[in-house]
């Protein structure tokens, strides 16, 4: 190795010596005039200006505002508000009933397990050569493109007495006379089912992308070694998509804790379907306790950050190395 190095240096030196310098000296080339240097430093910031301005205006400023409001007794409209210190947080943590609504998140959490399993199943199947592959991809991904409010209305008709679900069951000869949103358990299960229908597509696409980035030779090599489809899944696919899988889990957990639009449209939190975010919205806009609601939102943010942190500690994001 060493010998080679000296060799190159030698030839370089010879080459330079053989040809007279045609290019300007490197020192003069590096130091551009002041104005140009300023522009060069500024250019990336100019590109960033628009997204940063939007990000600050619509994300960071409102969040800063919300944190500020959480220390006041503001009612959301009155011109005067008073600083109350940590009073809102004290009230929040001395009222355990405000946290009981997290039991509802359990339904969504259970649903997201089903959702990830289903998405993984379809992603694996469709990553192999299947007939009508692209059609099925479209069908699975489509629900994710539909607006949450629209989904709420669609499923309201779906679960209605004598609605779509009852008619379809009727076709199969099953005439249930059941109010799908009638009891707490049934309503939460139905809503969690809607959430599975809605988000499976997203998980599916994430998984599919990750699976397709696994090099094809690995499958061939494993087949030569006599591996089965299950073995391929267990020892090639699963380790290959681990980072995406753990991302999906984080998204599901935070999504379950902050479930909002579909239950809000469909039941408005009635019949024991109230989630933490619905409760917060009600505190802010129904009982005009904007200060307390802001504090609740901050607490939810911290809970989600904490859950994510714990999850990352338990399943560290190792670099994937299949080869």
């Amino acid at each position: 190795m060493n010998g080679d190095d000296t060799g190159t240096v030698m030839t370089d030196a010879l080459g330079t010596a053989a040809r007279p310098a045609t290019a300007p000296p490197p020192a003069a080339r590096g130091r551009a005039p002041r104005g140009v240097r300023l522009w060069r430093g500024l250019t990336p910031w100019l590109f960033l200006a628009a997204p940063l301005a939007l990000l600050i205006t619509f994300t960071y400023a409102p969040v800063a505002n919300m944190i500020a409001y959480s220390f006041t007794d503001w009612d959301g409209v009155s011109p005067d508000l008073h600083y109350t210190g940590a009073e809102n947080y004290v009230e929040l943590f001395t009222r355990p009933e405000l946290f009981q609504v997290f039991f509802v998140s359990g339904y969504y959490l259970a649903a997201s397990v089903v959702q990830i399993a289903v998405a993984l199943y379809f992603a694996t199947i469709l990553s192999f050569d299947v007939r009508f592959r692209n059609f099925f991809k479209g069908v699975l991904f489509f629900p994710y493109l539909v607006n949450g409010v629209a989904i709420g209305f669609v499923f309201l008709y779906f679960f209605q007495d004598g609605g779509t679900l009852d008619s379809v069951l009727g076709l199969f000869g099953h005439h249930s006379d059941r109010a799908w949103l009638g009891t707490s358990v049934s309503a939460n299960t139905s809503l969690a089912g809607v959430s599975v229908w809605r988000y499976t597509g997203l998980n599916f696409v994430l998984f599919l992308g990750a699976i397709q980035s696994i090099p094809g030779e690995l499958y061939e090599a494993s087949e030569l070694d006599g591996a089965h489809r299950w073995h391929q899944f267990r020892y090639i696919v699963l380790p290959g998509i681990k980072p995406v899988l753990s991302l999906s889990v984080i998204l599901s957990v935070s999504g379950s804790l902050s479930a909002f639009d579909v239950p809000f449209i469909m039941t408005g939190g009635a019949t024991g379907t109230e989630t933490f975010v619905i409760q917060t919205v009600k505190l802010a806009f129904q009982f005009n306790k904007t200060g307390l609601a802001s504090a609740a939102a901050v607490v939810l943010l911290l809970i989600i950050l904490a859950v994510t942190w714990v999850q990352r500690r338990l399943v560290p994001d190792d670099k994937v190395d299949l080869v």
Partner: protein
Amino acid sequence: MNRRTSFAGTLLAAALLAAGCTGSGGASKGADAKAPDDPAKVSGTIKVLTQRTDLVQDGTMKKYAAEFNKTYPKVEVEFEAVTDYEGEVKIRMNTENYGDVLMIPAVIKKGDYPKFFASLGTSAERSRKYRFTDFTTVGGKVYGQSPIGVTPGFVYNKRVWKDAGITDWPTTPDAFIDDLRAIKARTKAVPYYTNFKDKWPLTSWTSANGSASCDTGATTALADGDPWAEGADLRVADTLLYDVVHDGLAEKDPTTTNWEGSKPRLAKGDIATMWLGSWAITQFRAAAEQAGTDPDDIGFMPFPVQVGGRFCAVVAPDYNQAVNVHSAHKEAARAWIDWFTDRSGYADDNLTLSPVKGAPLPDVLKPYQDAGVKFIELDDTDGATVKAIDNQSEVGIYAPDYRQNLVDLARGARKGSLDDFFADLGKRWTEAARTVGSGS
């Protein structure tokens, strides 16, 4: 590294700066919107915010404006219909730009009225001519005026009730339940429809307050005591609702009800009864015409309690119209409110009561006159306190939640007894009443 921290600092500073820009603006306080002396001289373009999207869309409001221009030729009136009126206007009221004339959103505290609205005159002077002045009076000055008066009651299908063999209005809650049973037994109609999913029809049961006791001090009673004590108005009303649902006299699946769909169903006789207000009669008549049934089938009856042999009907204001304190054309805005209240015919067109004292009853309430129903107006001196207690306790008598829970309890989707349910509400209410009483 250094660069990154300084960048994060800039971000944070910018965010805080932007945060500092929003929030409480300085309020000009205590302006008056005087009535113009000479109608021909008032000028300016005024914007009227309204929740009546239907009337703006079908051009009815434009017709009112054209009529208004005959008296005030130089004033141009624009309308802005807001679908989610409460929610949107509340947020806009953080700025100065919330129209020239608007309906006072329920969220605004009475004590804050002078900061948001221009006064229409003293209460002594206005109460001689108009009803409902004390609902918007702060410090002797009036800040709003409702263009209509409404009375709560049951909208019902006369044909269905007659088919069930009922000729007279029930006079007690028990008789009401018996009548609904008769409807269930003898007709195919759903005796009562809760509109559970759309929520606000459940909220409107609160307006039964005052009807059961025939007491003009019913609002004060809410502020002073337990609204769910034995014999209290709200308990009587809520018990009636509970019994209706508990005895299976309401629709089968309340969780998926549909308000727009319920109107033609009542008109056609699929639904017999709903607790709403006199404002709803005109909508049900329209639905009946559309469905090809007789609009005269739509009836209206008072809450089934008699005091001294007479029914009692509470007359209450709808949204109160007010002038924006920041408006550049307060005279023109005032002119609109006066004209709309006194001369537009809006109250008649909507088959509601006129807010002008001594005006005749609308025809739809003729049966009330024949039956000798007593009209009362509640004293609203403690209205602001009741709202404060309601928010503090998070009971929500002006929100649907606790009645949705009540209906769930009645149909067995929620565990517990009615007495415990009322006791819990009463406990939260009276506890909050103590802190509100000492706090403000």
